[in-house]
Each structure stands twice: as structure tokens, then as C-alpha cells.
């Protein structure tokens, strides 16, 4: 679940890419910016995937089962002669946008619940956090599968299902930040100046909680890419013949031993996307996190 890599500043040294964090400036800072900009590169590839893709993803465009590099197909063709490169690019787009959509919904839902619980405190805090803990105590991917199964398989349903199970971690992070901020002098000053609860929450508490939430999200997006790929692999994504990285691996498993590239290349694309987002997440943490 989202908790695979909890955001704890003291444990920051755990991540291999974090040696750059020693100084927030100079070479370390440049390296962090370079890592963080991987997010932009992943997104650019996703946005321009339809332009970059040389062929149709649905129609056969060559002989079936051509190995990579032959016949002008960089990644070869699949069992019915579709261009693997084109399918991987379009699959990249849907995987990445799906991950961003779920992260965004996690940030918004979790952020609102964390903000309300942290600001109000008392009974509201207890109830909201008990519900959050309840969700955290269940295996999120398995629960997501059950939600999809109930709603009926489909891409939108999968996104909704993962969104439903992906917010609790953010609620905890935001609520924790808010509780710390509430004790700060500037919040006390605002309260003495007569600011209402809503104004304090929006103007004085929320801005302070955003960096931690963003850092958590950027460290989390790689996990989400992997989880969504696993669900797609299990057949919970878009139906045939849409190009999807996890599903393209699963459906082409029968070709593994002879035409390995058909199932393997989409899987490698998932790995590259997850690796790049993890490196970028470390970069974002180094830039925003350790304060």
C-alpha cells in the first residue's frame, strides 16, 4: 500500500539516491533538481505518446512476431503484427496518467480529511483518524480488487477503486503536520487576532502541510505505478485491444519462451517508469523535505 515508503525525515538516509541531500545547495542541489525533473520527462513522454508512436496501436502494421530491430520495428511486433513500441508508448501514457490521477485524488481526499481532523481536534479528530486507521489496517491492493469486482471491471472503476483505498496515508501525513503547526506561534497569533477556524485552516495551517504531502506523493507515485500495473496484469484495466503495460505482459505470456520481447518489453517499461519516479521522488524530497 501507500505506506511502502513512509515519509520520515529521520529515515531519509535509507534511500540510495539520498547522498545528495547532505547539502541543499551546490552540486547536491543540482543533482536533486536533475532527479526531480525526471517527473517532467516521464510526463512529456506520456503527453506526446500519440505523436511519438510511429504506428497504430490497434491495427496490425507488419508481419507477426518480428524480433526487435527487424523490419523497421524498434521493439518488434506482437503476435498479430502490431508495433510493440507504439503499444508501449500509449500504455506508458495511460499508466502514468492513471497514477497521477490516483495520487491527486489521494492528496485531495486525504488532505481534506487530515486538515479537518488536525484543525478541529477532539471528537472529530478521533473519529476521522479511527476510520483512517481502519483503512490502513487493511491490505489496500486486495481491497481495491474487491471494489473493482463489485463495480464491474473497467479502467474508470479501477481508478475509483484505487482512489478509495489510497487516501488514508495522506490523511495521516497531513493531520500530523497540522497538529505540529497548530502549536506554532504564528497560528496562536492569528487566533489571538481573531481569525476564524476556517481562515486559520486555509491560510495558516494548510500551506505549511503542503510540502510534506507533496514529498510523500512524489515518493509514492512509483509504488502506485507498480500497483496499477499489477491490477492491469490481473485483467482489471482497459479491455482488449487497448494498449496497457501490465495487461500487455499478461496477455502475451504464452509467447514468453519463443518471442520473449512481446511480454517482456511492456514490463521493462513499467520498471523504467517506477525507477524514474522513485529517483525523482528522492530528488523532490531533497529539495523540499529535510527542513
Amino acid at each position, binding site marked *: 500500500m501507500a505506506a*511502502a*515508503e513512509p515519509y520520515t525525515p529521520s529515515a531519509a538516509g*535509507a534511500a540510495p539516491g539520498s547522498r545528495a541531500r547532505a547539502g541543499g545547495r551546490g552540486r547536491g542541489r543540482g543533482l536533486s533538481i536533475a532527479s526531480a525533473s525526471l517527473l517532467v520527462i516521464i510526463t512529456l513522454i506520456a503527453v506526446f505518446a500519440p505523436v511519438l508512436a510511429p504506428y497504430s496501436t490497434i491495427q496490425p502494421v507488419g508481419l507477426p512476431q518480428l524480433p526487435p530491430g527487424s523490419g523497421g520495428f524498434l521493439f518488434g511486433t506482437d503476435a498479430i503484427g502490431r508495433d510493440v513500441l507504439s503499444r508501449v508508448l500509449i500504455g506508458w501514457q495511460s499508466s502514468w496518467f492513471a497514477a497521477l490521477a490516483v495520487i491527486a485524488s489521494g492528496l485531495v481526499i486525504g488532505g481534506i480529511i487530515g486538515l479537518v481532523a488536525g484543525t478541529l481536534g477532539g471528537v472529530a479528530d478521533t473519529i476521522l483518524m479511527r476510520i483512517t486507521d481502519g483503512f490502513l489496517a487493511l491490505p489496500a491492493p486486495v481491497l481495491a480488487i474487491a471494489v473493482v*469486482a463489485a463495480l464491474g471491471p473497467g479502467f474508470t472503476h479501477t481508478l475509483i477503486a484505487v482512489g478509495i483505498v489510497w487516501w488514508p496515508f495522506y490523511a495521516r501525513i497531513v493531520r500530523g503536520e497540522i497538529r505540529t503547526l497548530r502549536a506554532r506561534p504564528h497560528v496562536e497569533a492569528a487566533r489571538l487576532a481573531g481569525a476564524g477556524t476556517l481562515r486559520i485552516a486555509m491560510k495558516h495551517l494548510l500551506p505549511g502541510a503542503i510540502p510534506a504531502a507533496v514529498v510523500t506523493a512524489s515518493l509514492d507515485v512509483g509504488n502506485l505505478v507498480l500497483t496499477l500495473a499489477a491490477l492491469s496484469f*490481473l485483467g482489471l484495466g482497459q479491455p482488449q485491444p487497448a494498449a496497457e503495460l501490465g495487461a500487455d505482459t499478461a496477455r502475451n505470456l504464452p509467447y*514468453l519462451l519463443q518471442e520473449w520481447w512481446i511480454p517482456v518489453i511492456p514490463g521493462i517499461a513499467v*520498471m523504467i517508469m517506477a525507477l524514474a519516479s522513485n529517483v525523482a521522488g528522492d530528488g523532490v524530497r531533497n529539495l523540499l523535505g529535510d527542513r
Partner: protein
Amino acid sequence: MTALIAKRLGAALIIVVALTAVMFLLQKLSPTDPVHAMLGPSASPAAILHEEHALGLDRPLPAQFLSYLNGLLHGQLGMSYRTRRPVSTDLGSFVPATAELSLYGLAFALILAVILAIGSTLRWPGATLFRVLLMAGAATPAFLLAIAGILLFYSKLGWLPATGRSDYANPPTGPTGLLTLDGLLHGEPAITFDAFKHLVLPALAVAVVPAVSIGRVLRSSLVAGMGSDYVRTARAKGLSEPAVVFRHVLRNCLTAALSMTGLQVGLMFSGVLVIEEVFAWPGVGEYMAQSIPAADFPAISGVTLLLGVGYVAVNTVVDILQAIADPRIQQS
């Protein structure tokens, strides 16, 4: 200690009941009508009414939930729309394979985690390699690892089998259901060895994701622990280095690694579902994969409840173990 255990068990019970409530509501939300699913599209209105009454669907929701809970307590998970058998009967034949895979996966994960943590913490030339492994492992989808394993160890080297649990046509079916154990109990070590060979690739594929997360936590607490004051004190009073590491540092590091292990079991379960698909492993993942396209909600909710309860149970045990490893937890 007793109070703590009671508290943890109470919390676990509440979460399990909440999970059953969620499953019940999802069943109600599901567009598949159980009566139609059972009787087929051409059933007469009278038969539908009769079946609705027999299933208790004409009663108010709270009453339905109570009878659902009561059924669960008696091990009834409903009837599968697809196989037309009780889900509990179906699960009974799939659970042992999944249990064996999960147990080996967890064991491999813990071993790998310790190797990764120590390998990347020690000052030696291989540390960089281990750090790269930690990073790559965190980004590798389990299914990619699984098919890479098949290509290398089955297709290329021919060392390990790629599908199923056993090469034996009639492996022993009892008493534990775990083939590696049953082979020994029946006095046939060849069956155990064969089952183990079948387990290696899937269990490793299942293990890598949790191993990397546990390894990272263990590594960071090892690094932090070795530099702390109590280590200096322990060394100053003349304790040997192994005594310092095992009795002081490792014990302190265990709590963090343990709680990460508990959390990772949830991820591991979803890994198990995927890996069973790749290796044609006859476990609940196979059952789930066949149930999803058939919109067989009772079967899916049965698997979810099973894995959910397993996850809650593991984490409850982890909580209690943590309190034993670190007495400070009991006081808070």
C-alpha cells in the same frame, strides 16, 4: 502485557467486522443480481421471488447483514455464481497452495532483507552494488521478475520448473496441505524436494518487493543504531562487537523492521495474486483470476475476506511481538 494483547485483539476484531461490513455493502452495490446469477436469465417471476425469499433478500438490510455475519461465523461465504459450489469449499482446495507460497515468500523476503541491509551497510566494495539492487528492486514489477526468472532458470538453464506445484501426478493431499511438509510426513523426501524446486521461482518473485522495503528500513535503522550513544556505552563497558550488534543494535532495529514486515504482507498478498497467474500456481489467485471476468462477487469477496483477515492477523501478531521486543511500546 495481557492488557496490551487484549487491546490489540479487540482492535483486530473491530477491523475484521468493518471489513465484512464493507464486503456486504459492496455486494449490495454490485450490479450483478445474485438471484439472476443463480437462476439464469429465463427464470420465472415465481422462481425469482422464491429464491429471493430463500436467500433472505426480502428482509431489511440490517437483518441481512446480521445473517451474513452469522453465516461467516459458521464458515459460510456464500455460493459461487460460477462454480455453483459454496465459496468456502472452493477456497478449501485453493488455500493450501497460496499458504505455502506466502510462507516461503515471507521467509525468503526476511532472509533477503537482512542480506540486503547488511550488504549495503558494511563498508566494503560490494556495498554500492547492494544499494543499486535495493533501488532496482523497489522499482521492479513482480511479474517482470517472475518472467525473467522463467526465461533464465527454466528456458535457458533448465534448472527449475516454471509451472504448477509438483511434477507428481498424485501428490499427498494431507495433513497440512503444504507439499514440502507433507512429503516429509509421508516419508517421501523426493516429493518435498520437487515441491521446493517448484516453489523457488514464484516465492522469490513474491519476496523481492517486500524484501527491498524491509531491507531499506533495516538498513537505515542499522546505520542510525550503530552511531548511537548506547552503542558507545556498550562498547565502553567492554562488550564484544557481536554482543553489541546482536543484543543491542539489532534488537532496537527489529521493531521498525517488524512493523514494515507487517505492512508488507498486504503488498505481498497482491504480489501472490499476480505471481500465481504467471506460474499457473493453483492458489486463491488463480481462483480470483477466474472469478473476476465472471463477475463472481461471492468468490471475490471470499478471497478478499480471507486475505484481509490474514493481513489483520499478521499485523496483530507483529504489534504484540513489537511490544515484546521493545518494552517501551507497552507504556505508551
